[in-house]
């Protein structure tokens, strides 16, 4: 399913919206979801972030062009444009940094299976891999190296407990219902996030 179809399904009235407006909506949604869930959500594969970054870049160019123009009428427009630009940049930055915090916290976990790795963007994957390698070398040099070889692992899973720290998927989340609907609880509430991404449960939002 195409993102446009999903959005149409989510919100039929949005089908007539300009794509810029829809992108801001999508970005806001992924930001709220990312900030509200214990685990890293999938990187939007529809090019949302890339598209948004492109728009920001061209808007910055526009600001530069307008700054040269001293017409007082365009002065206020410039303030509005710059205010919006800052808001937009805040959203992108906060979204990326919220993801980074999760990757940092559980890097080994997100690198551990292909399924989990697929949630990361290519840049995030490169970052996580290199960061983890740096950390491991640092640990080796500062203390792990003094241990016996069998005690040097950081990803040991024996003894009923894994050294690979992972987010608590049983953590509670708030779900906002936008109209009357039945909520189905399940030990692993991932179901909800999956549901929302499919656009099927468009009446709910993790907040």
């Amino acid at each position, binding site marked *: 399913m195409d993102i446009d179809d999903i959005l149409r399904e*989510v*919100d*039929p*009235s*949005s089908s*007539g*919206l*300009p794509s*810029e*407006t829809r*992108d*801001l*909506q999508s970005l*806001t949604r992924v930001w*709220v979801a990312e*900030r*509200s869930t214990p685990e890293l959500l999938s990187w939007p594969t529809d090019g949302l972030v890339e598209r948004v970054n492109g728009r*920001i870049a061209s808007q910055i160019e*526009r600001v530069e062009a307008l700054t040269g123009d001293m017409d007082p009428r365009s002065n*206020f*427009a410039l*303030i*509005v*444009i710059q*205010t*919006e*630009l800052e*808001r*937009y940049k*805040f959203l992108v930055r*906060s979204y990326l*940094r*919220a993801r*980074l*915090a999760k*990757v*940092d*916290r559980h890097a080994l976990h997100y690198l551990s299976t292909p399924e989990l790795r697929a949630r990361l963007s290519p840049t995030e994957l490169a970052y996580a891999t290199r960061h983890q390698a740096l950390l491991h070398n640092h640990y080796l040099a500062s203390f792990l190296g003094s241990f016996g070889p069998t005690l040097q692992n950081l990803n040991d899973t024996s003894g009923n407990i894994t050294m690979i720290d992972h987010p*608590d998927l*049983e*953590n*509670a*989340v*708030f779900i*906002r*219902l*936008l*109209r009357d*609907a*039945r*909520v*189905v*609880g*399940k*030990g692993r509430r991932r*179901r909800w996030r999956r549901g929302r991404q499919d656009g099927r449960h*468009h*009446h709910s*939002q993790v*907040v």
Partner: protein
Amino acid sequence: MALPLPQGLVPTEVAFLCEMEMVTVVPRQRLESIPLLSGDTPVLRPPHRAQMPLWLALLLKKQRRANIVPPAWLHPASLADIIHHETNVDPQAFSPPPPPPTRADGRRRPSPATTHALPRPSCPRVRPMPPGGYLPYHWLELAEALLAHAADDVPATAEVRSLLRDLQEVRAAKMRGSTQSLEGGGGVVVLRGVGAMELAESRAFVLGVVDGVRKLGASAEATRRDEEANGGGGRYGGGAGGRGDFEDSDEEMEF
């Protein structure tokens, strides 16, 4: 440069979201459309009203280019109604959220309900502000922003301020009491009608209580799940999807 914030939106982030809420303004000056990243702003022609996100309205207000029309629910009579409802009609629950707008044919549309939650930046055809008598999701932050930056547009500000404080108090007590429902297990706290800022204030606490109750009942829950799984057929066994299909499995809780 990882974000050093806890899980869940913090008050300043909620306020940021609130600034995307649409408000009505009465322009005092003409203003041509401005091309923004999220779409073009409406053309402003006094005295025609226009809808725009709060952040833009506040910007126009600061420059004395427009007045903001306070939403109906912010009027003293409406707030007093809501307080009456919260204290006398239903002292347990929050007052109900605004009803989803209905179509002319009376049929419920799924979409406008969605719009309550989702920002509609610079989008001209949006829901109107919820009618009086109901608090919207961003009630507190919207009210505070208007009182701070457009106080002269809000009638009876002193009264509104005092009503808002009363409302905050009575609802804060409900928030604290909300986790009491977890006593018997169940693991779900119903907060219908809660506001975004109230949620931000109590989120970590409420989630902590839910998680604590979950852990305290974890062994009982594990036994129950084992029994279900071994129960032959069970709820997991049924259905075409089998165990991987969560669609019809497990207990169902009504909100």
